[in-house]
């Protein structure tokens, strides 16, 4: 069989990684690390945190990394968290 010679992350994966860092920095996102429960729980946690950030910025609350949410995340900003953590 053939194997991919490069393992560059896809743009979506980049977005997710960037969003995770952003939400960890400013919204206290803490990802579940135990393998057994990781996937599903993390998705819920991430969605909740995205909603919290969207609510704070007055964006449409979708829980998804839509364009306006990613645009806001990429704006230069202050390093202090937006919520208590």
């Amino acid at each position, binding site marked *: 069989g053939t194997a991919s010679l490069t393992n560059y992350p896809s743009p979506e994966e980049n977005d997710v990684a960037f969003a995770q860092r952003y939400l960890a920095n400013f919204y206290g996102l803490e990802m579940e690390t135990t393998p057994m429960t990781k996937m599903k729980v993390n998705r819920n946690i991430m969605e909740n945190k995205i909603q919290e950030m969207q609510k704070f910025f007055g964006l449409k609350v979708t829980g998804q990394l839509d364009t306006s949410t990613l645009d806001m995340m990429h704006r230069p900003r*202050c390093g202090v968290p937006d919520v208590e953590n």
Partner: protein
Amino acid sequence: YQLFPGRPVWKKRLITYRINNYTPDLKPEDVDDAFQKAFQVWSDVTPLKFRQIHENEADIMIQFALREHRDAYPFDGPWGILAHAFAPGAGLGGDAHFDEAETWTKGRKGPNLFLVAVHEIGHSLGLGHSSDTSAIMFPSYRHIDYKIFRLSADDIHGIQSLYGRPEKHQVPSNPSNTNPAACDPNMSFDAVTTVGDKIFFFKDRFFWWKLAESPKSSISSISSLGPNLPSHIQAAYEIADRSHVFLFKDDKYWLMNNLKPQLNYPKSIHSLGFPSSVKKIDAAVFNPLFYKTYFFVGNKFWRYDERRQFMDPGYPKLITTYFPGIGPKIDAVFYYNRHYYFFQGSKLRKYHVLAQRVIESLKSSTVLGC
């Protein structure tokens, strides 16, 4: 606005700051000037005073740093995180750090040092981030014309909730800064009404109020009138002889009697006789001469008979037809001394009720003594 957990504040009025090192992006005197002006923005609206010192430990230590810089929050290179600051306290408390990877400017080609300094000093004094996009404490950077920069009402409310107002004798560095957001040349109001001998000018979560004959105004929050009253009021009017003030937002309205919100409100505006197609009211005004209330919606208006308690027949009518020189739409209106005062964006038109014509055009912010 938000405060930090535990509401940390400085327990004294004279606070020192020290600029530990200087960015090579600007002349040292420009850095000094930017911070001096930034601190002055906050001292103008509080009893606080700030003094720069050049040696020993200051309350607020300011430094420009790259990446990891001995606190748990490394910087990340150009743009991204521009700066951060710590809540009031000893040691690191109150300190403000600026990312040296940025190209700091006095203008707009890069992050403006003065604007970012105002924001970080807000943190150094105890303010958290605000979700109000017009506030300097909004977390994302956006360029504002720093020459006419003003704190927003939300910023002022937040910092005064921590330190109170400036002492009476204290003359602000910039007189119009006593109502900073009010004197914005593009100021427009959500709703305006007389209330007894005063006039209330509603904007976002706040209202300015002043005696009708005095240029001086004060600011308060709508929630101080009643916890259940909404922000962003859209229309308001007073029936003075009943001490009734009506507030409108979307398809609901509230009644205050002697400035006390009445129970069993809000009610639906459709109970007044509006068709279901009307979803909100732009402006409203009660005319004591005719004992009628005029409701302005889009480019049309209705007239309500307050004695008989129902809408007059033959409405709606076009605003431009029956109020020459006004419209097609209006933001707010109030009645005072045989005149309507129509607000359309940043324009104010004084309209003689009986002569039925505009007799003067002004800037909306004029009414607040600007």
